[in-house]
């Protein structure tokens, strides 16, 4: 059961989600797992991709393709599938990967199952549905099977494999594929500790009431030894920097502890944090969706609870 994994990178950093999918791919059958890297300077990343489980790494090295547009990548994957007959193409969800996977489905007339949290060795996908109130088993009727996994579904694991076999790919692009061009990029830099690597995150939403109340989140984060995150609503409102944004168009995090302060838990936020190990939510609306996927839900006022909580955490750490 041959598997190809699209591995996403940002600058010279491989994306954790893709590496997790590579680790999962290695458990699916005996064939060598293949990976594809597309962009400028990606050849230098091939060896690292190998260390996460890919025996073969296809490299489409091109500065012109470094900006993250989906369609040229569809051309590259379609070519690999047609030439090598990959039966499975796996993706870790991202803004880019979702567009690639869907366009590839249309190109190849192939089935795409998305928002999967797992896949079995006989290729049954696990997909939470209806606000995660149910898990649906999904399948594919034809190959190639295309699968898009939720961020944080699998842990990345370095293996002891040797150097991967690296192979250059050349692609004839479709006329429409390179019509959309990235003309500039703005990347915002994080101020405090990075939320992507933090074991503990305290995140704030509209329910904090005002931008200055983010000090509640910051003080609790400091006491717990964690980083501060924010919802898109408060970032859009200018309360907190974009670098802290968690969700569909922000960072995807899976810390050991996620504390949500005044966050309702809209789906766009949820996709960025739902795979956290332990989720604690404080919100004064008893019907807030966040309570449906929290391990501990507290119905109450963040302004009353959080200062006391911070103090108790400090006392405990001091003792």
């Amino acid at each position: 059961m041959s598997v190809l994994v699209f591995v996403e990178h940002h600058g010279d950093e491989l994306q954790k989600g893709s590496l997790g999918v590579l680790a999962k791919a290695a458990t699916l059958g005996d064939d060598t797992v293949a990976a594809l890297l597309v962009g400028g300077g990606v050849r230098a990343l091939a060896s690292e991709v190998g260390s996460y489980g890919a025996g073969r790494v296809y490299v489409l090295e091109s500065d012109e393709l470094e900006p993250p547009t989906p369609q040229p990548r569809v051309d590259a994957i379609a070519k690999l599938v047609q030439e090598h007959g990959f039966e499975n193409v796996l993706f870790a969800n991202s803004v880019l990967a979702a567009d690639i996977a869907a366009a590839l489905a249309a190109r190849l007339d192939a089935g795409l199952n998305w928002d999967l949290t797992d896949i079995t060795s006989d290729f049954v996908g696990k997909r939470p549905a209806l606000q995660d109130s149910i898990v649906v088993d999904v399948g594919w009727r034809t190959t190639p099977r295309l699968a898009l996994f939720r961020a944080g579904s699998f842990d990345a694991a370095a293996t002891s494999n040797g150097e991967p076999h690296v192979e250059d790919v050349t692609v004839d692009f479709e006329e429409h594929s390179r019509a959309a061009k990235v003309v500039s990029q703005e990347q915002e830099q994080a101020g405090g500790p990075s939320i992507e690597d933090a074991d503990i995150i305290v995140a704030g939403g509209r329910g904090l009431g005002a931008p200055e109340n983010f000090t509640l989140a910051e003080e609790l984060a400091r006491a717990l030894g964690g980083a501060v995150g924010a919802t898109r609503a408060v970032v859009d409102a200018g309360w907190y920097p974009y670098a802290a944004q968690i969700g569909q168009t922000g960072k995807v995090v899976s810390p050991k502890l996620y504390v949500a302060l005044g966050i309702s838990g809209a789906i766009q936020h949820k996709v960025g944090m739902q795979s956290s190990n332990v989720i604690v939510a404080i919100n004064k609306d008893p019907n807030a969706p966040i309570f449906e996927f929290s391990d501990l839900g507290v119905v109450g006022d963040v302004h009353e609870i959080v200062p006391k909580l911070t103090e108790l955490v400090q006392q405990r750490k001091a003792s």
Partner: protein
Amino acid sequence: MKIAVCVKHVPEGHSRIDPASKRLDRSGEGALNHFDANAVEEALRLKGDADTEVVVVTVGPAKAADSLRKALAMGADRAVLVSDEAAAGSDLVATSAILAKTLERENADLVLFGQQASDADGAVLWAAVAERLRRPVVSQAAELTLSDGSLRVKRQTEFGYDVIESPLPAVVAVSDAINEPRYPSLKGIMGAKKKPFDTLSLADVGVDASQAGDAGSKTEVLSLGEPPSRGDARKIEDSGGSAAQAIVDFLAEKRVL
């Protein structure tokens, strides 16, 4: 200039999956997917006073007409509903084929989508449709401007913003940060009833029944299982900050403190 907006009629309130068909139960009341209202609004904003036609398109049951009428009431000029028993249960591959065929008839300069469907949390359809139409695609548009046969999008990503330019015709999925959708006025609602409204079958748009619905789908739902476990999730009510101690105890129990 012509702008086509693809919208979805989604079930209102608490949705359920029908255990027999393993499909989302669409028998109850429905409404315009609220993310699609952003796409309708953006089309109307781009239209302005210019000589531009905004046509709203959906594939769905007969009741999906309600969602199209809402878009007409907001200000869209014309509606197209593709409704056919044989289309029910279409997956991504099948739905994108039906929608692409429908859009080919319209030959719009710009095709807009909302950022996701609120029922199935799907956020992938536009790229499949764009591929079938062989047009450039840009998603997560937080700003969209048109000029002289091309478009410019400020696109939000995990890492910041990309500014993307593309020639028209093109397909764009807008984010819900792009605008605040208007509410239909009473005049708009009354006027919507007189606007052109086409109801088409699969045959009308040139899709064979074997390419649609269950027959045309490449994925399937095998079974419905239990909810994902959050273990022993608890919910408590605070009184004057007393919950702080309960939270600390909980964190200690979970060994995260």
